[in-house]
């Protein structure tokens, strides 16, 4: 539809026409601001926390474990912050010198920031995910959302609005 619009504007004499082909789905999926009815409801990006620890594939398990804070995972990212894996911390990790690449789970499930909270909460429960990794459509890490935060805000939203968006 935008292709036809762009062509028509060109025919109407508009000389500087651009077509954002990926459209508003791409825009919203990358956590960029939107307006309208749906924008009034909080989405998964609202509860994603950017303080989830990260590391690289070539780091040592022992070094990563020391910075995990209260998170049960560390997200493995590349130089462009693209998610490549997740390291779930095991209290029985004994080989501090093993590389992250040897212990991580590659290709974890990631969710987009524009997913409605109720949808996200159901998905996390069904898939047994906690926390959820939130990324752009290019796989760049935005943060991690704890299931309890997703469920709490989803419940509050339903109570406030009287229903799911």
């Amino acid at each position, binding site marked *: *539809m*935008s*292709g*036809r*619009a*762009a*062509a*028509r*504007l*060109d025919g*109407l*004499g*508009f*000389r*500087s*026409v*651009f*077509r*954002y*082909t*990926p*459209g*508003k*789905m*791409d*825009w*919203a999926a*990358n956590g*960029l*601001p*939107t*307006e*309208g*009815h*749906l*924008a009034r409801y909080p989405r998964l990006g609202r509860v994603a926390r950017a303080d989830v620890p990260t590391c690289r594939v070539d780091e040592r398990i022992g070094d990563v474990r020391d910075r995990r804070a209260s998170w049960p995972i560390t997200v493995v990212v590349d130089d462009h912050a693209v998610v490549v894996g997740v390291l779930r911390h095991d209290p029985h990790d004994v080989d501090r010198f093993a590389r992250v690449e040897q212990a991580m789970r590659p290709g974890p499930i990631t969710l987009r920031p524009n997913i409605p909270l109720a949808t996200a909460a159901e998905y996390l429960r069904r898939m047994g995910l906690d926390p959820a990794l939130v990324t752009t459509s290019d796989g760049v890490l935005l943060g991690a959302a704890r299931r309890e935060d997703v469920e709490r805000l989803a419940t509050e939203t339903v109570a406030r609005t009287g229903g799911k968006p």
Partner: protein
Amino acid sequence: MAKEVLREEVRELVGGGAAVVEVLPADEYEHEHIQGAINIPLRNLDREAPERLRRNEPVIVYCNDYQ
């Protein structure tokens, strides 16, 4: 002929004063649209574009996705 752009270019163009136009029907626009975008449904383009847009300024059009 229109140039295809990605979202980072959209942000730059908007920063430079480009108009952003969603060409979907009004109910879809009301449901959700890019912040700051106006709505000119495709079927109204001939009538409304000359009234609401400036021919010598950049315009970005979009819809849902790769439609």
